């Protein structure tokens, strides 16, 4: 099942690569846009969930139970769950799109390394992954792995004064941070668990994706950056971006 999932990724990537004139970097960018379109309902659900959570922070009943059960965490959790149920809010809906990224990242990473065929075994596996009969893979091989200054099959760094400077990893971390901050619900309550969770995600996700960008194929970084920029644009266009969050102390109301 997993192999089929990866095969679909590989075939779509190769098809785009073939159609656009053999540029694997552009193929990854277009593929990312495709992924964003496919996962649009999930992103919409996330935005809806985030907005509902944000509204909840200003709700009198919500604020009252925070105050009332400030010293009884178990009871507070029960009351919070009751309110979630009553108002049909899923606290998980806001982090589902983030979590769904992981299988996509893994599948994309495998697709990139297999498509670029950096070892004989990778190339042999590629021959077994072709499910689109119209793809002429022997003609496409070897894929052009160069994009701008990068080799998409390898981790990226630019040599500055003899030291490798991880440009892409930095851009990945920054854009991930901006996207997370923009979508973070504003909370006046320091004990609010959802806000704490969002805050934690806005710290850990940039570090995690930055780590991926630092250590794995730079094609993956192209996916992260494109996906983050699209996310930021999407929020901004819908007027839901919380730009104040980017400023120091911007979380406070």
């Amino acid at each position: 099942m997993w192999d089929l999932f990866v095969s679909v990724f590989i075939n779509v990537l190769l098809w785009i690569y073939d159609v656009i004139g053999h540029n694997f970097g552009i193929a990854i960018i277009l593929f990312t846009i495709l992924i964003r379109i496919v996962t649009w309902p999930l992103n919409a659900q996330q935005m809806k969930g985030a907005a509902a959570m944000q509204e909840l922070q200003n709700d009198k009943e919500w604020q009252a139970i925070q105050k009332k059960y400030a010293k009884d965490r178990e009871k507070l959790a029960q009351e919070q769950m009751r309110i979630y149920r009553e108002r049909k809010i899923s606290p998980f809906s806001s982090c589902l799109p983030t979590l769904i990224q992981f299988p996509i990242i893994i599948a994309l990473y495998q697709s990139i390394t297999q498509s670029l065929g950096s070892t004989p075994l990778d190339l042999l596996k590629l021959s077994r992954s072709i499910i689109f009969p119209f793809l002429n893979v022997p003609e496409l091989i070897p894929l052009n792995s160069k994009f701008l200054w990068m080799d998409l099959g390898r981790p990226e760094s630019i040599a500055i004064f003899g030291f490798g400077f991880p440009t892409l990893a930095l851009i990945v971390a920054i854009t991930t941070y901006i996207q997370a901050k923009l979508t973070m619900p504003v909370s006046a309550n320091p004990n609010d668990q959802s806000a704490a969770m969002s805050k934690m995600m806005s710290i850990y996700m940039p570090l995690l994706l930055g780590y991926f960008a630092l250590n794995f194929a730079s094609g993956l970084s192209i996916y992260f950056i494109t996906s983050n920029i699209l996310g930021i644009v999407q929020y901004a266009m819908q007027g839901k971006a919380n730009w104040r969050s980017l400023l120091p102390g911007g979380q406070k109301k």
Partner: protein
Amino acid sequence: MRKKVLFITMALFAVALLSGCAGGPVRGTTWPGLAADENAAYLADGPYVYAIDLKDGRELWRYPADTDNDFVFYSTPVVTPDGLVIVGSSGTNRSLIALNPNDVNLNSNNTNSPGVAWTFNEAKDQWVAPPLVADDKLFAVNSDGYLYVLNLQDGQSTKKAVKAIRIGGRLWAKPTTDGERVFLTSLDHSVIAVDIETYEVLWSEDIEGAITGSAVLGTDGMLYVGSLASQLVRFDPASGSHEPVLEAENWIWSAPSADGDTLYFGDLDGNLYAFNTSTGKLNWPPIKPNGPITASPLIQNDHILVATESGFLFAIDRDGNVLWSQEVGGKIYTTPVASGDLILVAPLETEFYLAALDQNGRQVWTFTQGS
């Protein structure tokens, strides 16, 4: 709290999976390289190159002495006339290294390691192809698209290329020579001829598909190349003019093996072909031993040995009849090697790294690290 745990679990799972796919110095990232002389087998298998005693399958030495994350070996080792073992690394270290089996030292971890006679550090990418030794010269092709010519007799411990010739594409197959020219094949669909004395590119011709195997010279004086476009293509070695002479059922991965005027080769559908260069026809209809064939057939006195991905070794006579078959195990992608009475097979996905069989396919010994 549950969300935090879920997030961290997913993140760790992703890191673990990606790290596993990243191809560090572990066995199995691709198939090993195998060579042998009359005394030892040389196995380039992930983090180490091993020398294995042919008498009993005991480890004679390994290189490097301890695991070094910079080294990954899978290019087939080459033994020079003066006994050096040359092998290239495909890790972050992209050295071509000449090991001296006559200068072996005991390490603190109780293993033996050979001295390094010389290294060549100018290449920028992986060493997939073994180099070609021609008299006192070494013709080494790298995935960076260069043919490097080294002088074996200059006595230098840090080799400089006599000539670095930009060929282009990824060069994964061992060069071939007819004594006048060196022939190269490229994943970039090209077959190239280089003058062996002047290093001038004489011709470069494109064919339909990528090429992963070496070119081979037939007894008719022509050059034959199998491609991933499933074609066997015949070249005039002097002019480079070429034509497809056979359409296979699937990708032809490795070089055909020449036996008189017959070329034996397999494809990824598992067909074995016997192409007669004199008649331009197949000696017999393709036979399908058992599973895809990536390894070149091994020509023996009274039979041809064919290894399949399904882990079997088949002995086939020159009329296309199966004499015997033996399940070795795992998946066999590496071309088997013969030394004396032994047939050496290096499968993937088995507990052992190397198996030695007798001429009837019976297992004599196996080798695993530390044995």
